[in-house]
C-alpha cells in the first residue's frame, strides 16, 4: 500500500470491499456513519417536504376555509409528519449516529466502537423505523401532532399505532447507540488519554449518550401505553375510565425535554472542535465546556414541566419547574462565551464549517434567549402554543443543531471521502441558509407575540408575517439544495484532500483521507493535547498539515523537512 495523506487512489474503507451486502451487513463504524448520514439526509428531505407543505398552506389563507374541513384536516397531518420525522428520524440520530459513529473511534485512536454488531443493529433499527413511518404515510398519515397527546391520540382514526411502533423502534436505535458510545469512551481510550485529555466532541457525545440511555426508555413505555390505550382501551389516560391525561404529558416530556438536549449537545461538541480548529487556538475553558456538557445532561431531567404550564399542572410544580429551567440556561451560556473567547486573538479562517459555527452564535443566542420568555410563568401563559414557541424551538433545533450538523459534515467531509468541499459555492450556500432561516423564523416571533396560535390551519390577521416566513422558507430551500449539490459535486470534482486539511490536532486527522479499513496504519497513535495546534505544520496544498514530530514508524508521513 502506498503511504500517502490522500488514499483515494489506493485502498481505503470505501473501496476495501464491494457490493451491496458488504455495506448493508458491515460492522465498520465508518461505513455505518456514512450510511446514517445519507439516510438522515433523505429523512430530512422528507420532513422538509412537509415543512414546505405547511409553509405553502399558510402563505395565503384566503382560500383555505373555502376548501372545506378535509383540506384543513390535511394540515394536521403535515405538521405531525413534519415534527415526528424531523425529531425521531433526523435530528436525534444526526450528529451522534452519522458523525459520532465515524469520528468517535478515530478520535480515540481505536479500530471501532465497543460493540460493532450492536452498532449495525442500531442502524437496521433506524431503517425499520423509517419503514414504519413510510407505512404511516402510505396509509394516510397521522394527525395528532408529534406530541401524541391523549385523548385525541387514543380516539383519532389515523395511523397512530403504526407511527408509535416506529417511534418505539427508533427509540431503541438511539438507546443502543448511546450505550455503545458510553462503553467505548469508558473502555477504549488509548494510554495517555485521560478524561480531561479527550476532545470536547467526545465529552458532548458522552453526555448525550447518558441522556439517551436514561430518558429514551421512558418514551418507549409511554408510546406503548398509548398503543394499549388505543387498541384495548386500558384507560390510564382516559378520564371517563378514571384515568388522567396530564399524566401522559408528564411521561412524554420526561423524555422529550432531555431529548432536545440529545439534539443540541452533540452539535455543541462539533462547535467546540470548529471554533478551536478555525481559530488555530486551544479551546478557551476546556474544563468548563466539558463539565457544562455533563451539567446540561443532568439538569435536562428536572425541567420538563415547563412544557406543561397551562396543561393543568399544579401551581406549585409550575413554579418549581420555572425556577429550575432558568438554571439550565447557565451551562449553555458558558459554552457560548467560551467559544467567543476562543476566537479572540485567534487566527480565524473563514472556511465553510467555521461560517456555520459563527452563524450559530447568532442563531443559538436568539434561540436560547427566547427560551427565557417561555421559562417565565407569566409570559409563557400568553406565549404557550403560539408561533413564539415554534420560532424558539426552530432557532435551537434547526438554526443551532441542524446547522451544527451541516457544519460538522463539511468539517469531516475531507476525512470521510477524501475530497475538499470548501469553495465559493459552499460559502454562498451558508449565506442563503442563514438569510433564509432568519427570514422564515424571525417573523414568527412577531406573529406569536401578536397572538397567532400554532397548529392552526387557518388564521385571520397575520398575513404579512406568514408571507415573509413562507418566502424565507423558499430561500432556505434554495440554500439547502445548493448545500447538498455542492457536497455531491465535490465527490466527483472536488480537490483531493490531505489527511489534515484544517490543521487540527485530534487523532482522526493523523491518518489518510479517506482512512484505511482499520483506521490507522500504526498500532497506537501518539496521544497529546487535542487542542495544541502547534503539533502540526502546514506543508502545502497537497500535503496539508502534518505532524512536526512524526513517529518513525508512521508510513503516511513523508520525511520531515530539515530544521
Amino acid at each position, binding site marked *: 500500500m502506498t503511504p500517502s495523506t490522500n488514499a483515494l487512489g489506493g485502498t481505503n474503507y470505501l473501496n476495501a470491499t464491494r457490493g451491496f451486502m458488504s455495506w448493508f451487513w458491515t460492522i465498520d463504524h465508518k461505513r455505518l456513519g456514512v450510511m446514517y448520514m445519507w439516510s438522515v439526509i433523505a429523512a430530512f428531505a422528507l420532513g422538509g417536504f412537509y415543512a414546505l407543505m405547511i409553509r405553502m398552506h399558510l402563505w395565503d389563507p384566503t382560500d383555505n376555509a373555502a376548501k372545506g374541513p378535509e383540506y384543513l384536516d390535511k394540515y394536521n397531518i403535515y405538521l405531525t409528519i413534519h415534527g415526528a420525522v424531523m425529531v425521531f428520524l433526523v435530528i436525534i440520530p444526526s450528529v451522534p449516529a452519522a458523525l459520532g459513529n465515524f469520528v468517535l*473511534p478515530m478520535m480515540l485512536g481505536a479500530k471501532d466502537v465497543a460493540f460493532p454488531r450492536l452498532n449495525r443493529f442500531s442502524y437496521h433499527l433506524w431503517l425499520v423505523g423509517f419503514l414504519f413511518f413510510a407505512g404511516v404515510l402510505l396509509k394516510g398519515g397521522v394527525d395528532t401532532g408529534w406530541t401524541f397527546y391523549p385523548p385525541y391520540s387514543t380516539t383519532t382514526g389515523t395511523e397512530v399505532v403504526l407511527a408509535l411502533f416506529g417511534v418505539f423502534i427508533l427509540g431503541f436505535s438511539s438507546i443502543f447507540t448511546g450505550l455503545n458510545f458510553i462503553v467505548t469512551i469508558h473502555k*477504549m481510550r488509548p494510554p495517555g488519554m485521560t478524561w480531561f485529555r479527550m476532545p470536547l466532541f467526545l465529552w458532548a457525545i458522552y453526555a448525550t449518550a447518558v441522556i439517551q440511555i436514561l430518558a429514551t426508555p421512558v418514551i418507549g*413505555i409511554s408510546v406503548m401505553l398509548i398503543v394499549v*390505550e388505543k387498541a384495548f382501551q386500558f384507560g390510564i389516560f382516559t378520564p371517563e375510565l378514571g384515568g388522567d391525561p396530564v399524566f401522559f404529558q408528564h411521561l412524554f416530556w420526561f423524555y422529550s425535554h432531555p431529548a432536545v438536549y440529545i439534539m443540541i449537545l452533540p452539535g455543541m461538541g462539533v462547535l467546540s472542535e470548529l471554533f478551536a480548529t478555525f481559530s488555530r487556538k486551544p479551546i478557551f475553558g476546556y474544563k468548563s465546556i466539558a463539565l457544562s456538557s455533563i451539567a446540561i445532561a443532568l439538569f435536562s431531567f428536572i425541567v420538563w414541566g415547563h412544557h406543561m404550564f397551562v396543561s393543568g399542572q399544579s401551581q406549585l410544580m409550575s413554579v418549581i419547574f420555572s425556577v429550575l429551567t432558568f438554571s439550565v440556561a447557565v451551562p449553555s451560556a458558558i459554552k457560548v462565551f467560551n467559544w467567543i473567547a476562543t476566537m479572540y486573538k485567534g487566527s480565524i479562517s473563514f472556511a465553510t464549517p467555521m461560517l456555520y459555527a459563527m452563524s450559530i452564535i447568532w442563531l443559538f443566542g436568539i434561540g436560547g434567549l427566547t427560551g427565557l420568555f417561555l421559562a417565565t410563568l407569566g409570559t409563557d401563559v400568553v406565549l404557550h402554543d403560539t408561533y413564539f414557541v415554534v420560532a424558539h424551538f426552530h432557532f435551537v433545533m434547526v438554526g443551532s443543531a441542524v446547522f451544527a450538523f451541516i457544519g460538522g459534515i463539511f468539517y469531516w467531509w475531507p476525512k470521510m471521502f477524501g475530497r475538499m468541499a470548501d469553495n465559493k459555492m459552499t460559502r454562498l450556500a451558508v449565506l442563503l441558509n442563514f438569510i433564509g432561516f432568519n427570514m422564515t423564523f424571525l417573523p414568527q416571533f412577531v406573529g406569536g407575540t401578536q397572538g397567532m396560535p400554532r397548529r392552526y390551519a387557518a388564521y385571520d390577521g397575520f398575513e404579512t408575517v406568514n408571507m415573509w416566513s413562507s418566502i424565507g422558507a423558499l430561500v432556505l430551500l434554495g440554500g439547502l439544495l445548493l448545500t447538498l449539490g455542492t457536497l455531491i459535486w465535490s465527490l466527483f470534482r472536488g480537490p483531493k484532500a490531505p489527511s489534515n486539511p484544517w490543521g487540527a490536532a485530534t487523532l482522526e486527522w493523523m491518518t489518510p483521507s479517506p482512512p484505511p479499513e482499520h483506521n490507522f496504519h500504526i498500532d497506537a497513535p501518539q496521544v497529546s493535547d487535542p487542542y495544541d495546534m502547534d503539533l502540526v505544520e502546514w506543508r502545502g496544498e497537497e500535503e496539508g498539515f502534518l505532524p512536526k514530530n512524526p513517529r518513525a514508524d508512521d508510513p503516511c508521513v513523508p520525511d520531515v523537512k530539515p530544521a
Partner: protein
Amino acid sequence: MSHHDHPEGVAHHFESAAQQFDSGKLGIWTFLLTEVMFFSALFVAYTIYRGNYPEVFQYASNYLDTNLGATNTVVLLFSSFTVAWGVRNAQLGQQGLLKMNLVITILCAFAFMGIKYVEYSHKYHEGLLWGGAAHSIMKADPADIDPHMLEHSHAWNVGDHGATAVKDLDPEFRQKLGVFFAVYFCLTGLHGVHVLVGIIVLAWLLWQAMQGKFGPKNFGRVDFGALYWHIVDLVWIFLFPLLYLIR
C-alpha cells in the same frame, strides 16, 4: 504495516481479553439501567394512583392470590440462584452443571409463566379487567357491563375474601378499580414479556453451552445473560408486595 499477535477469542477491535470482558460488563450494566427506566413509568403510574386512591388499591388486593404470588416469587428467586450457580459453573468449566442449571432456570421461567396464566385466566373469567375491556366488570355504569358477567362473575355478585361485592361498590370506586387493573396488567404484562425474552436468552445460552462454548476463558455471555435474568427477578421482588400485599 505492523501486525501483532492478536489474542485468541478477542474481537479485532479490542486489545485484550480483559478489555473485551470489561466492556461487555459495562455494556450489560448500562443496558440494565435502561431496563430500570423502562419500568419506571409504570411504577410512577402505580404510585400516583395508589397515593390518591389508597382504599381502591387496598380493596383490589383481595383479588390477587397471595399464595400464587408468593410461589412465583420463590420460583424466580430459585431461578436466580440457579443461574448465578450457572455463572460459577461456566467460570470453572463445569459443563454438565452449567447445562443443568440453565435448564432448571428455564423451567422455573416456564413455571412462572404458567402460574401467571392461571392468574390471568381467573381474572378474565371473573371480569377483573381494566375498565375499557369489553368483558370487564369494573365499569361505573352497570348498563355497560356484559350481561353474561353480571350473571356469572363471583366477584361481581359476592366478592372475594369477605370483600364487598363489586356490584355494591360506589360507581366512582369501581371506575378507579378499573385503573388499578390497568396498572396491574401493564406492570405484570411488561414483566411477563421480559420473562419471555429471558427464556429466549437462556435458551440461546443453553444451546451454546451444549456446544461446549463456555469455559474459564469464555464465560462472559453467561455472566451477562444471568445479570439480565436477575433484573427480571428484581422487578418481581418489588411487584409482589406492591400488588399482592396492600393493606
